[in-house]
């Protein structure tokens, strides 16, 4: 029971709970970005449902990134990161725990909320299902990849935007497969292929990202 990664998970969730605003900001951001488009244009339901997959996926991606930039920043500033590096247990596991906490706090709400927004865009029932499923499979990859960027830019000048610059290009496959899945199901095709690719991306990220992140963290505290 005394696993360091469990402690990390517990601590981050407790903090998020104490600080509720983080969750709220992510969710709000997602809502604002995705509801802006119908406001900004001539809202015909055909055009709307045409752009829906792209808009919803990009909104989810940006919402996650907004909070991701600070994933390790406070730990770094207050010295907790040093303590994590000195814990006699694998750093990769602790990193994974932090990413999991981030996903639970920022990714999951978006997954759950997406169908409601999807309704605004007149998405049919199946497409809504696929939307949720694709987000469920894809958002973990976003958190995982983002963690690498967050770790690399720790303590670096102007880190917020730099993370975005490093990470967004790497997000593109996830975005393409995710939005592709929804678009396929909208056109009555099978989303199977896209979803498998999405899952593959997440799995690959799950294997590699914690390692890369841990290495980056060691570099950053020097």
């Amino acid at each position, binding site marked *: 029971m005394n696993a360091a990664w469990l402690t990390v998970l517990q601590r981050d969730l407790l903090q998020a709970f104490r600080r509720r605003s983080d969750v709220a900001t992510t969710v709000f951001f997602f809502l604002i970005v995705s509801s802006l488009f119908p406001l900004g244009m001539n809202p015909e339901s055909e055009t709307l449902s045409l752009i829906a997959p792209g808009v919803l996926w990009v909104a989810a991606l940006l919402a996650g990134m907004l909070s991701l930039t600070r994933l390790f920043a406070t730990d770094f500033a207050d010295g907790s990161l040093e303590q994590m590096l000195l814990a006699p247990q694998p750093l990769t596991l602790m990193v994974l725990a932090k990413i999991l906490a981030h996903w639970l706090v920022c990714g999951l709400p978006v997954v759950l909320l997406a169908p409601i927004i999807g309704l605004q865009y007149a998405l049919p029932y199946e497409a809504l299902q696929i939307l949720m499923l694709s987000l469920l499979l894809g958002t973990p990859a976003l958190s995982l990849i983002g963690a690498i960027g967050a770790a690399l830019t720790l303590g*670096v000048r*102007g880190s917020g935007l730099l993370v975005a610059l*490093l990470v967004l290009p*790497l997000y*593109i496959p996830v975005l393409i497969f995710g939005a592709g899945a929804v678009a396929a199901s909208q056109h009555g095709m099978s989303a199977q292929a896209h979803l498998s690719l999405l899952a593959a991306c997440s799995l*690959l990220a799950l294997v*590699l990202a914690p390692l890369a992140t841990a290495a980056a963290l060691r*570099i950053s505290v*020097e």
Partner: protein
Amino acid sequence: MKINWFKYSSPQNFYPLAGRMVPWFAWLAALLTIAGLYVSFFLAPPADFQQKEAYRIIFVHVPAAWMSMVIYIVMAAWAGIGLALNARLSAMMAQALAPTGAMFTLLALVTGSLWGKPTWGTWWVWDARLTSELILLFLYLGFIALQAAIDDPRRADRAGALLALVGAVNVPIIYFSVKWWNTLHQGSSISMGAAPKMVVTMLTGMLLMALAFWMYAIAVALMRARCIILERERNSEWVKELVGAEICGSQTKTGVNA
């Protein structure tokens, strides 16, 4: 003859060696460019109906696009070696290559756009190759920005190397994802079987230009590496001696002609 390669893995020994190599590569680049331009402008078959002379842009565009990808791989390889073996010089090479890579990527994008206007009627379309080339540019810029943002050189090296490696894993994934996403771009024009007669001169032109770009990239990277070495090692004895000698105006044996 036996060469002690490890001798050259120290910046101090590499610096003069690079200095001697730069002019060779620079001359080669110049000669090959002249040859390549000659072939492409005078020997290559005249314009096809549609594209008029604009098609000759291919002799810059395609080699630049090739180089943009090759340089990223080379850069990631240097970075990886630097990270694994803790070799300073490899990291410096990676750093020296990045701007050249970004420059070729930009060149491919710009020439492509210039070409797109007469052929497709628009500067830009969201197609697979174009998009992945754009993303490649972002990857380069991310690498450069990260290194610029960290001022401890050792840390910058290692952080940059990690990023380059992560990017190298992602480049193929990005390439294929974008490819499946949408395809509008020209197919492979260099297939072995097709119209060999016409292809040969064009191919020579392109290959000559590609070789010229290679030489240019090497020459510039070596020059940049020399600057980086000087800056990084500015407090070491040998650099102080070298710079001191330069200021006195006495020709050093190594021939510092930067």
